[in-house]
């Protein structure tokens, strides 16, 4: 019994940390630009495939760099792709939320199809960053990779938290989310704030991609579930609130773990979705959110 509760707590904590990582990048973009970047899941996928290409001996043989370097590559791929998405597309359409919503989703669909073209629709495994497992002796099973993912996620989240709330740069990012015009009037360097936001969000997506891609699988459909999760977490936590995203990530992470334990994996996502709808109807701003201010 103790073992069951313990493993529930541990599994939940692991998965929740990764969920938080997935959601935060999405939160930032939504918060700062009012842009619902539905290509966020696509960026996660790019991170995973980026890692695959450089670390696996079966893709480009001479690359096959060590996984830890691959992690850096995945982060870079996510960041650059994200920035490219902004300057190449979103910048021109962000005045119209509907078009942006649609266009970024279409980008995700294109990325997914391109992934099929490049890597076929068969799922791939990734080289394990940290093989093996620990904790059997105390009756808890955790793979080393889960521990690495947990720690890395929290470090990334911590750094981001510090940056956003404790530095002038970070405060500018928050301020921009409230009023673009206000930010301009106070001399915020908008292009640089936006670039930073998209780069950071993309880097977090790339990082998350490696963890999801290894713990689950790397496939052309892997963009949708993280996107749905990010969406749900952000809305439950409250638009633009990093704290909210973390709390909601844990809420959803544990809820899913519980659902899977009690009802089986077929119901994994369903309850989160139901919770989401209830939260939206009862408190439309989410747990820590502010009312959605248009423009």
């Amino acid at each position, binding site marked *: 019994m103790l073992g069951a509760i313990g493993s529930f707590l541990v599994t939940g904590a692991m998965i929740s940390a990764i969920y938080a990582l997935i959601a935060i990048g999405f939160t930032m973009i939504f918060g700062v630009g009012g842009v619902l970047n539905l290509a966020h899941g696509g960026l996660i996928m790019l991170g995973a495939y980026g890692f695959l290409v450089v670390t696996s001996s079966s893709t480009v043989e001479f690359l096959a760099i060590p996984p830890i370097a691959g992690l850096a590559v995945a982060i870079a791929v996510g960041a650059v792709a994200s920035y490219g998405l902004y300057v190449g597309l979103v910048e021109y*359409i962000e005045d119209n939320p509907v078009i942006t*919503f649609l266009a970024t989703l279409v980008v995700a*669909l294109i990325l997914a*199809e*391109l992934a099929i073209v490049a890597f076929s629709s068969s799922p791939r495994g990734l080289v394990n960053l940290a093989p093996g497992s620990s904790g059997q002796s105390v009756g808890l099973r955790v793979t080393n990779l889960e521990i690495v993912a947990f720690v890395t996620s929290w470090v990334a989240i911590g750094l981001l938290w510090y940056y956003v709330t404790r530095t002038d740069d970070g405060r500018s990012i928050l301020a921009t989310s409230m009023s673009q015009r206000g930010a301009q009037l106070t001399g915020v360097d908008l292009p640089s704030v936006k670039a930073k936001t998209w780069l950071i969000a993309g880097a977090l997506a790339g990082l998350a991609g490696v963890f999801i891609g290894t713990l689950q699988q790397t496939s052309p459909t892997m963009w949708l579930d993280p996107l749905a999760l990010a*969406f749900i977490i952000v809305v439950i936590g409250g638009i633009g609130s990093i704290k909210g995203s973390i709390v909601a990530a844990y809420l959803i992470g544990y809820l899913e773990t519980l659902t899977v334990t009690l009802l089986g994996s077929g119901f994994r996502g369903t309850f989160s979705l139901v919770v989401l*709808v209830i939260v*939206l109807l009862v408190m*439309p701003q989410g747990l820590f959110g502010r009312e959605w201010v248009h423009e």
Partner: protein
Amino acid sequence: MSSDTQTGGSLESVADGYNDRFGHLFGELNGPQFALLIGSLVVLLAAPVWTSLLGAGGLLRTLALASIWAILAMAWDIQSGYTGYISFGHAVLSGGAAYTTAMLVAHVNPDLPFLVTAPISVFAALVIGLVIAIPSLRLRGPYFSLVTFVAGLIFYQLTYAFSGYTGGELGQRVGRIEFELAGAQVTTFDPVTRYYVMLVPMLVIAVALLYVARSNVGMILIAIRENEEAVAAAGIDTTKFKIWSFVLSSIPMGVGGVLLAHFYGSVNPLNFLLVDRSIEIIAMAVVGGMSSILGPIGGAFLVIVLREEVLGVFGVTGRWVALWTVVLLVLVFARDGLFRKLWHILGDRGRADGGDDE
């Protein structure tokens, strides 16, 4: 606007005849616009003739499929395009109807006639529409879109969770349409009959939705999109009208869903509930031109013909890359829609004062 038409006065006089009789019902047209409409209608009605002359029997199947999607795109338009409450989960409505048909056939009685399953399924779409609309219409902007997006995901997952009833990923068989009409046996086994079984409902729905869209109701829906508070200040119950728009949308969505189920002969989450399907519906409406009813029809035919007939040269996966890229380009460079553009070009060339297609 000055009269500088060279295209011949006779066209104009026909158009005027139409305008006098029906202009106030469906919107006024000028000569070229009238010609475009009548021309398209003739091309569609005569499709079995010219496709068989051209030896392009497959094209007839594609046009039948496009007719169904045109219904879905129009249905989305009357709700999302007009009210500005953008639904990202409309496939749930058509999918709900399709699954209702499939489950009736699979779990109630495989021999239930089409004339029984179809109305029940359309009703199911209406119920699902209201279940989604009533709570979610309290929310605005991206939140509404989000809830509809999520509703789509929920339904998608439920088909897996309840695979015992729904057939899970692999779906369920539906079979063909067979019913008697005025003593004649109508069956979609025959490609030509099937085409008309898809085309005629599309035309009927188009006329009905145009009529509504050009009426007070359409004006109020557009006004809700532009400024909901102003509409409430006018003494109009916006909630009632928003729900009404869902009703107007759910019914044709249900019809489209049922037709699509019979067209494919089976239902599965991929073809009916996956987010891609909702996005396809939106893409058609946006490519054609939102909030114009006619635009989405054009968008649907364009997208389906591209998807099924043209982009196939890029391969099974490549055609999707190509199709989504086309959609993306339209979104960025012609966000008002291609057919609306065309319509306005014709409007400017002709005499009448544009087509007030809003």
